[in-house]
């Protein structure tokens, strides 16, 4: 494996790893949650667990939007697209996510008009190009993608494009963190804060975590050195008894966030009273719906939506894995019935899902341990 060669600044990584070992000592066990799915992917890809001392445990958080979407929402979206002359448009991430009757890709094979788009504005473009069809954009994502959906809807309204709607599944990260902190079986010492979500929301929304919950949080970049530095910053806070929001990813994340993006979200969306998260259950005020000003472009107001609720397969333990109570490989289905090729749970679908990340890199672990010991 070439991972280690690809690390930049190996001497800084080595120094950060030494500092982590020094700070962590051996007396205490530290549980830190990385909130973002991108971090989860990076942790497995870079084999960071093998660099970290054993008393630092990384818990994978809920920050993979595909993974936390309940199956019923996929069924609801597909049921709209089953109506005549409707085009189902979604990001590629969604295409293999299983609904009760199969994934969007499987529906496409059965004749549904399913299109991959790489931007919500291209879903709108599809609507312009297909005036005799209705294009429904299946929107997912945290605050990184929600502003783009919002601005696209503002453009649809400004242009008076009527054959376009959004099936909105946008979720917000803060209530999910709150739900995890409220969960009785969850004990955490600190958070590695999401990188690109924070580009939009800034660092202020995390202040309650530090002030009220007394947990340090460091917004982090995605490179190995970024994450190790973030862990150093968290350990320093924990040792000093400090609880602050710190920004390790200053080169990308402004403390105040992106106001234009927040304004676009405020123009188009409002908070849902509650929304179901896979594995976490119903969380109040944790997701966005389209407000009445944009009702004409809201698929849920425009079409009959069955409101399907699907219980996850009993044997699958996605919820426990999502909350960090179980490690991916401790799920009964992991690597047997549920694999990246044939996912049963959504955590196995996206490369940002902890099960898929674990599955992809676990078998390379032995090789990495050998090479990493040379730098760590």
């Amino acid at each position, binding site marked *: 494996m070439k991972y280690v060669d690809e*690390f930049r600044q190996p001497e800084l990584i080595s120094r950060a790893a030494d500092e982590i070992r020094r700070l962590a000592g051996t007396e205490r066990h530290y549980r830190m949650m990385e909130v973002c*799915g991108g971090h989860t992917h990076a942790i497995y*890809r870079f084999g960071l667990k093998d660099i970290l001392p054993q008393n630092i445990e990384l818990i994978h958080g809920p920050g993979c939007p*595909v993974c936390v979407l309940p199956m019923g929402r996929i069924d609801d979206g597909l049921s709209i697209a089953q109506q005549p002359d409707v085009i189902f448009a979604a990001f590629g991430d969604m295409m293999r996510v299983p609904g009760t009757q199969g994934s969007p890709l499987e529906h496409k094979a059965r004749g549904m008009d399913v299109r991959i788009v790489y931007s919500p*504005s291209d879903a709108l473009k599809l609507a312009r*190009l297909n005036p005799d069809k209705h294009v429904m954009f299946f929107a997912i994502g945290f605050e990184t993608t929600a502003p783009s959906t919002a601005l696209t809807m503002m453009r649809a309204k400004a242009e008076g494009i009527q054959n376009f709607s959004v099936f909105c599944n946008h979720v917000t990260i803060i209530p999910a963190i709150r739900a995890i902190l409220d969960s009785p079986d969850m004990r955490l010492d600190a958070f590695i804060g999401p990188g690109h979500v924070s580009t939009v929301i800034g660092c202020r929304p995390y202040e309650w975590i530090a002030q009220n919950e007394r947990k340090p949080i460091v917004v982090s970049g995605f490179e190995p050195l970024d994450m190790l530095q973030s862990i150093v910053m968290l350990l320093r806070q924990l040792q000093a008894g400090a609880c602050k929001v710190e920004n390790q990813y200053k080169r990308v994340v*402004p403390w105040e966030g*992106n106001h*234009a993006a927040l304004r676009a979200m405020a123009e188009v969306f409002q908070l849902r009273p509650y929304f179901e998260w896979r594995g976490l259950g119903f969380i109040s005020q944790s997701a966005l719906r389209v407000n009445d000003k944009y009702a004409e472009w809201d698929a849920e107001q425009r079409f009959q939506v069955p409101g399907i609720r699907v219980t996850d397969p009993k044997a699958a333990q996605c919820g426990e894995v999502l909350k960090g109570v179980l490690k991916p490989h401790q799920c009964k289905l992991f690597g047997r019935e549920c694999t990246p090729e044939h996912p049963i749970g959504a955590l196995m679908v996206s490369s940002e899902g902890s099960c898929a990340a674990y599955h992809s890199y676990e078998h390379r672990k032995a090789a990495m341990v050998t090479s990493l010991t040379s730098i760590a």
Partner: protein
Amino acid sequence: MCLAIPGKIVEIASDNPESALVDVVGVRRKIDLGLLHDDKPAPGDWVLIHVGFAMSKISEHDALDQMNTLRMLGEIDGAMQEVKGYGLDDQGDDPDTDDADAETGDAGLSEVRMKDGKVN
């Protein structure tokens, strides 16, 4: 969907100040600048792009850093696939294909997308 793609603004559309041509390692596509309303970029500036929208202005140094991060994460192919997909270039009736570079002429590309398409 957490990862952003760095691109350099090549030009801003004369008829639409919120539409810009960006260059991402040689691939040029139109992106939307509407979410940088408070801090408008100019040609030559670097931006981080999420799903076809510029989300923040960054330095050239940080843009190259971000590209390196994508490379280390094994996400370069996915990122380039995303960028190439902006503007629906795989739709035969797309009026904007003039911007598309030669690489997108690959007949197998849309097939690959159906298998592996993902947005980070």
